[in-house]
């Protein structure tokens, strides 16, 4: 065996307790992605062409861009753009003013997750990334950037934010839909097989589907686009923020943290690599 490709990229994790201004999160994010540059660990420095704009390194020929904006002291906005500068989504989180928060920042050449535990309110998250296109070649198509988050750019918690619902490009139109693989007893989705007979947890990659270029519209079939890097679906019975140890190869464990700010669906939650 070997570690699956989508779990083989570099990754970093930073946790900041007691945050009271989203500018701190932007500053922390910049420190994480701009200063870390260590190829043997898979860390490749991002670029910062202008304030709040972060462009990922080109990894296997792919890259994406996020723009972080302090809308207010409590409101953080992330705009996600693909390699062709098309806006995939603009999403926000809204933190409480009554208390401080804990921000968890997960980064790598192919993924970004900002998960904020707010204590006096449900956690909220912003995320984006590129997909591992295997079994297709890594240059097989250009619909590989995804994103999402808790709220619209008008601060509305619109519900377009669960483990299966993601923003991507369908044909030429960016939008959200239930596009992540589900595991049920038929094509209508479901939640079968999240633990073994002995009770061991079953994990699944976060796989995404979208419409090919020229195959859009209501009747455009979705095709398999790829897997999110360093991200897994995990059973929703886990506590938000829990650190879990997942076998990613024979004799190799990866530490993942359960994400609080992306809603559960069909008994699955999301977890992202931390160690």
């Amino acid at each position, binding site marked *: *065996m*070997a570690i*699956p490709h989508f779990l083989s990229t570099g990754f970093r994790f930073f946790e900041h307790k007691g945050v009271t201004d989203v500018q701190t999160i932007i500053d922390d994010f910049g420190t994480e992605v701009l200063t870390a540059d260590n190829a043997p660990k898979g860390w490749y420095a991002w670029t910062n062409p202008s304030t709040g704009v972060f462009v990922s390194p080109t990894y296997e020929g792919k890259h994406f861009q996020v723009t972080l904006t302090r809308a207010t002291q409590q409101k953080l906005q992330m705009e996600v753009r693909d390699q062709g500068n098309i806006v995939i989504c603009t999403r926000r989180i809204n933190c409480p003013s009554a208390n401080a928060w804990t921000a968890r920042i997960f980064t790598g050449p192919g993924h970004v997750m900002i998960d904020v535990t707010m204590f006096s309110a449900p956690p909220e998250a912003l995320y984006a990334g590129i997909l591992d*296109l295997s*079994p*297709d*070649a890594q240059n*097989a*198509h250009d*619909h590989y950037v995804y994103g999402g988050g808790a709220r619209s750019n008008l601060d509305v918690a619109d519900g377009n934010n669960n483990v*299966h619902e993601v923003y991507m490009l369908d044909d030429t139109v960016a939008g959200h*839909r*239930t*596009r*992540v*693989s*589900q*595991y*049920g*007893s*038929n*094509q*209508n*989705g*479901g*939640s*079968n*097989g*999240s*633990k*073994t*007979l*002995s009770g*061991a947890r*079953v994990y699944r990659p976060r*796989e995404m*589907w*979208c419409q*090919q270029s020229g195959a859009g519209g209501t*009747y*455009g*079939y*979705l*095709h*398999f*686009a790829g897997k999110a890097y360093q991200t897994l679906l995990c059973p929703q019975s886990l506590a938000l923020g829990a650190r879990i140890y997942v*076998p990613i190869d024979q004799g190799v464990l990866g530490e993942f943290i359960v994400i609080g700010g992306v809603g559960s669906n069909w*008994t699955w939650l999301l977890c992202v690599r931390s160690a």
Partner: protein
Amino acid sequence: MSIPTYLSSTFRYKETLAVVDVQTIINDLYVELVTNGGWTCTVGGSGQTPTTFKSPARADGLFLTIQCTRTSATRIAYVVRDHNGMLVNNQTDTRQDIDVAGSTVHYFTGPFHFCVNTERATPECFYCGLADQTPEPISIPRPTYFASYGPRDTSGTWVVNGYWSYLYIMSMGATSYVGNASRAILRACTDSFLRKTMSGALLCEPLELTDGAGIFMGRAYQAMIVDSSLAFAAEATIPLDDNNTGVFKVVGCIVTSNTKLAFRKA
């Protein structure tokens, strides 16, 4: 990567043309299973009916038995039992037909899987096996046996809900095998989708078994779920790991959720 356990077992494939008497099926199975496959024959034998085949014991000593009976020249009956003697295909027996004028028959066999497929205008398939429960240790807490719900019930009636994913399986806490529901885990995107990648490559996945209540019960050996756009008896070359491929042949079960089932041929 390396080849996963459920694709690492030994396997055999045989095709016999123009079979006009199901005794030929029993005789062919004797050659495939007993002469060449490491199984034993505990009742009957080549040229006899009924004939019972016993699979080679797994590392933990477990096995399954399959009794094959010629009920007429064109109809064969199967009885599958687990190592405790419990009836896996829990309907007295499961039956399968060939044409009076003769049918081509495909055999897919190995120590842990068994599939007989008859080419007819509406092809018929019977399959059963013992699942690979990786990452669980074998037989802890208990093994998973399965058998297809169709193609025909004890009276010989075509099982209209004998979708390939309808399997006899013993759920957690159950005391018998039950078969009238889907027991395969199907990867799905709830919008209209094709089991193909963006570049058009076929997207295949293992036949993973569930009790229908959230429990992962293992994977069928040498079986793959494929897109229903593949024709019956079509052959697909599927990557087994980074360096190896296998050839899988589509068998004739009823389509489920735009999917078909294929077994390893080469």
